[in-house]
């Protein structure tokens, strides 16, 4: 997993290591703005993340953000950076952060679709029955918005499900194993280019 952050990100990686050492209970002297300032270092000042494989969290679903922070903190979702950060917050602090980011406007992400993506993506969507849960990709409550998400992050998280790295949504591992890498790549670009109605 080091590979993800080896791409010249000395500052955030060091920050994460620092944070990972912090205690797991409620963070003392919790001031929302200060915590948010930490997040923006990676998730972007205006909502556009600093790296292509970092997720957009501005305008993401409240309950999804909350669940992910809890899952990182409890080790149900394993990630070198986020585990350490999220472990510092208790339930209520995680809720405040989730509320804050859910209330912001989703940013515009530059389109990257390639010819043939739509056809391949739609085949993957049919096979995985994705729309049964993801609907029109707008997200709802515990289901994340995927429309307009960063293609790099979508591809990586789908690969992480496929290779059993990401384990906090158990059925996704099985579903993603049915998709080949080309389909995952096409799906990621296709979703990143969608808007919500």
């Amino acid at each position, binding site marked *: 997993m080091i590979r993800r952050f080896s791409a010249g990100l000395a500052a955030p990686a060091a920050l994460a290591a620092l944070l990972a050492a912090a205690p797991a209970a409620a963070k003392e002297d919790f001031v929302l703005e200060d915590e948010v300032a930490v997040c923006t270092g990676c998730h972007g000042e205006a909502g556009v993340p600093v790296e292509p494989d970092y997720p957009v969290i501005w305008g993401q679903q*409240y*309950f999804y953000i909350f669940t992910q922070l809890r899952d990182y903190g409890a080790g149900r979702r394993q990630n070198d950076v986020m585990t350490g950060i999220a472990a510092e917050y208790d339930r209520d602090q995680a809720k405040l952060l989730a509320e804050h980011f859910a209330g912001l406007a989703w940013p515009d992400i530059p389109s990257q679709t390639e010819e043939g993506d739509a056809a391949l993506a739609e*085949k*993957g*969507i*049919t*096979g*995985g*029955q*994705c*729309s*049964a*849960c993801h*609907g*029109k990709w707008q997200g*709802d*409550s*515990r289901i994340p918005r995927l429309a307009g998400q960063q293609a790099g992050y979508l591809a990586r998280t789908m690969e992480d499900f496929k290779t059993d790295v990401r384990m*906090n*949504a*158990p*059925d996704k*591992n*099985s*579903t993603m*194993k*049915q998709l080949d890498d080309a389909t995952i790549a096409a799906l990621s670009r296709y979703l990143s280019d969608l808007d919500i*109605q």
Partner: protein
Amino acid sequence: MAEWSSKASLVCVALVVSSAATAQEETSASTLYGDLQSVTQNMLTRAAGDGNNFLHTNGNYAQTRYYPASQIDAGNVRNLRPAWIFQTEIVDTMETSPIVVNGVMYVTTAFNHVYALDARTGRQIWHHKHAMGPVTTYCCGPNNRGVAVAGDKVFMGTLDAKLVALDAKTGKQLWETQIAEAELGYSETMAPSVVENMVLIGTNGGEYGIRGFVKAFDTETGELIWTFHTVPEDSTGVWATHDATGRDMMRDIEAEKAALASMGDPYETLGGGVWQNPAVDLETRRIYFVVGNPSPDLDGSLRPGDNLYTDSLVSVDLDTGEYVCHFQYIAHDVWDLDAVSPPILTMVQDEAGNDVKGVLHGGKTGHVYVHKADDCSMIRFSEAMVPQENMWTLPTAEGARMLPGANGGVEWSPMAIDPQLRLSYAINLHQPMTYTVRSTPYPEGKLWLGGSFDVIADEEQWGNVTAVDYDTGRIAWQVRTAEPMIGGILATAGGLVFTGEGNGLFKAYDSSNGAELWRFQAGAGVNAPPSSYTVEGQQYIVVAAGGNAQLNYKRGNNIIAFTLAD
């Protein structure tokens, strides 16, 4: 001058005439149509013979979806035209069954919007948007299948697992009750049913490790009257090795017994949702409903035993919710080929050829099952309406192909019957899938399938409309459709059945032989059950065209009412 004055007087006359006509229309509107009419128990009880209203999700308490009006018939249906189209605010999956009371129609959309419309014109009377809580956990789209009406109230179940009562005249909320915990996977997409002072409702959540139920709430206060748990504390059963049709389900009973001894009864997270309305028998004061799959769907290792009463027809006492009888179609199901389509009460022939009170259910397996209402026992099952292959191959880590795929057969889509022709009408899916198992512990409110169902993208998919003679179990007629079918069907005394498709086509067939008599392109998937009603002597057919989330059919937001062209 003379000319001018004569013109003026003409105008005057015209004005008088037209205002008189308006006044008359308003009077008729307030006395006959569009005015609030209290829905009495008598109206609800006699709905099967009511050719003006459409008072229950499935037409009447027996859930026949057989509409008694016959103005629109096999001879004139070719003249059916849209009378009006109403567009809702939400462009998303629609499964609503329009309810019509004295010229006022109630429809719902995804995310629990409710509309009251003038059933003659489609004019909006009111619009209620449910204040959704922050946590919802549902499977298969943000659906809603409609309201129940009684007295001066309209009732709806919500995605955040509430039951709400609205004022039928204004749409204002009168009360709401939390049915169960949304965070743990409970949600509501079904329409409630009302009997006397009780609102009956089941729950979704078989994909999340809930413990299913049917509950009765007080129509006036929303207070809980009774709860029937669809999963009893002893869910073990009889260690059935064969399904209702006699096929070996390949269970490893010894391994299951060992698992039971070590882990105990899995009833607390065993699933058993109830997705659709019960049939109500007021003579015996019993209700009949079907219970959905066990949780986790594909992984039987965590839930030893027959997993009672999942995948079963169940009857309970209307007044107390106490168990009366059940019949399990598939014990220890690991394919999600469960029981969802609402049961129908009607007279059927038993094995000896005598007419007895019966219950019909269209299964995801593709069979129509025929039961005795008396003790739930099975009289017969129909020929398979869709291809079946490799039944029952157990799910594997790599994925095993078996037909039908996990959506059926008959999904949640209600069937209809024609009690004169003694035929049941079902819409079916043919969607080849692989079944993959992957054991994971209970994830506390997250999706818990225990693997995945994957559509084999290269194999052909299609659907059909199938009429079955329920006295013999033989297929009477069958019509192939281009795409797998989900939504519902309506039969009418005009010798017709109406049903829609994912590609936007809405069709009428001759109910005796399946001949297609009429079609309309709605522009979005027609994946909701049609209703019918009559206002001012004019019969209408109405259906929602909003597409479907589960099968990813083109979304829309139209309610379309059809009537005969003059």
